[in-house]
């Protein structure tokens, strides 16, 4: 029983990170109908930015919580800027092109980010130093680490914040309006380009936060780390219903549990990718709109 509870806790920790990344996929899809396959690699870049930011900040005798906060904010800002640049350079020229062109471009951008990082920084994995106090609390046979608590709490806070932004603010309303009808909304005076840029920025900033949190739990980073995590987050977005923000959160936690519980059901944890992609395949065949997505009729 304690083992199961412990695993649930681990699942929550992983699921939080997946949910944060899945949000980026789902927001961009909601607004542009574009599967941004480069998102996982943006997460990887965020981890590298975090790595260099801590490297700069660590030696300056600052209190550790300040280093953590500053790293977090710097990484989120820089990653958001990167994502906005990518959107301007690669996706904007394809706004009116067939969707397939845009999807291929996204795949290309993702591979570019991987190989560019590999070429400039080398294939050697690097370790991000711990920024959170490592304390373990024992609650009824259950070991809870402070890192787990911080990851889950910050993630949930970020998700609540994002949900509020999308539901309550004018920007959020503009985002929802664009995803509803892209031709009429500009006529109402909504600056579509700016809102799309902002969507990329927010989605990537949230993924960057996920990256910093993730690297506190799993400190080893390398140029290809974004591939697997990106795919898992993407599956999370599809399982929850791509385009649906709460769906992405739900999907993230489901995938977190899938990853944690796979070794207890199947012989080895190396089957986890197989399980996740089978879930994706079955989901797409049975219910392509995901758990929380609305089913819309195709207009002819």
């Amino acid at each position: 029983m304690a083992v199961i509870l412990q695993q649930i806790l681990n699942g929550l920790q992983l699921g939080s990170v997946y949910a944060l990344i899945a949000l980026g996929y789902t927001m961009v899809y909601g607004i542009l109908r574009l599967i941004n396959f480069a998102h996982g690699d943006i997460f990887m870049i965020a981890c590298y930015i975090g790595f260099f930011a801590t490297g700069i900040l660590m030696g300056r005798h600052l209190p550790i919580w300040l280093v953590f906060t500053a790293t977090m904010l710097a990484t989120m800002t820089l990653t958001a800027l990167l994502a906005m640049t990518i959107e301007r350079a690669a996706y904007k020229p394809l706004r009116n092109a067939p969707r397939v062109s845009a999807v291929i471009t996204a795949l290309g951008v993702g591979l570019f980010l991987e190989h560019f990082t590999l070429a400039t920084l080398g294939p050697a994995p690097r370790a991000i130093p711990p920024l959170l106090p490592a304390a373990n609390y024992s609650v009824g046979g259950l070991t809870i680490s402070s890192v787990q608590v911080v990851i889950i709490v910050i993630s949930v806070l970020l998700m609540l914040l994002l949900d509020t932004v999308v539901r309550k603010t004018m920007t959020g309303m503009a985002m929802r309006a664009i995803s509803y009808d892209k031709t009429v909304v500009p006529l109402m005076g909504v600056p579509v380009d700016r809102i799309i840029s902002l969507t990329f920025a927010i989605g990537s900033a949230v993924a960057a936060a996920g990256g910093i949190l993730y690297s506190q739990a799993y400190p080893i980073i390398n140029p290809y780390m974004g591939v697997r995590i990106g795919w898992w987050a993407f599956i999370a977005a599809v399982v929850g219903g791509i385009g649906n923000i709460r769906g992405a959160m739900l999907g993230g936690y489901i995938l977190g549990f899938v990853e944690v519980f796979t070794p207890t059901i199947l012989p080895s944890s190396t089957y986890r990718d197989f399980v996740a992609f089978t879930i994706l395949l079955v989901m797409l065949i049975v219910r392509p709109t995901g758990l929380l997505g609305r089913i819309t009729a195709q207009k002819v």
Partner: protein
Amino acid sequence: MMIESRRAPLLVLGTILRTRQTVLLVIVGLALSFFLERSGFVSSYILQILMYVGINIILTLSLNLVNGYMGEFSVGHAGFMAVGAYTASIITVWLFRNQAGALVFPIATLGAGIAAAATSIIVAIPSFRTRGDYLAIVTLAFNMIVKSLLENIDALGGPRGFLGMNRLTSLASVYAWCAITIYIVRNFVYSNFGRAVLSIREDEVASNLVSVNTRQTKVLVFVVAAFFAGVAGALFAHLVQFINPRTFSIQKSTDILVMVYLGGIGSIFGSILGATVYTVLLELLRPLGVWRWVLGPVMLVILMIGRPTGIMGLKEFAGFVPIEERARKKKEGTAVAAASH
């Protein structure tokens, strides 16, 4: 009507001539590839690149069938290639214990194609219901599942890979399979089925309404495309004599995509061009080291923004177009010109 009947013997003559031309071309090519291999006229390095070019032509052409002609979006072509590579290796290494050699290889290659074609049903069935980016995800998931399964089957070497194949692939066998692929794809595209495939690309609902059996057509296209991907996998496995699951990752699928979109969608000549240019280019850029891997994705992005239909872009080298088709196009062209005057 008069023109039609006067044209008829000309058409027959043209067809015979062209058939003879084609047969001659194939025989000369085969002889040349035998010669190149035996004579030591070119280095084994050049020989190897030539074989890579051939394998890539088969891959590109088969993916073009799905992405270019049918307008569906498959991004998991390396998955079929993996199925073919492993099947052929199992046949030659386990079934024949590496003994029968070159005689068994065509059978192993055929078997590889058939195995890959059988797995393509997994992708074809979801394509009945979903199109566009959702189908792209299905094919990607297929690629990932194949790779993940291969990594977990210990008998096949798991992540360490499968080895022990003899070098059975020769330039002549690659050339022969290339010719077969081009021949079948070309005849397929200009057949009645080919028309159905094109109609699905232009408008699926409308083609359904004019009684095109879209399901059957889709299955057929996926099966043919996967078959040749499997063949290419078999040739590849017996060329490098070592395969591991990582060889057949999304990276490989993306490479095939680049070749399709570089050469030109919906064009046989485009596929040959794209595969050749990309393969040779990557070889020439070898001194750049890791940086040459940056090239492919950048090229893909620039192509998508600048010329999403590729160099040939739905156009065909006249030699691949049936003479009847050219006559028809010409007549239509003059009719249009006459009407506009």
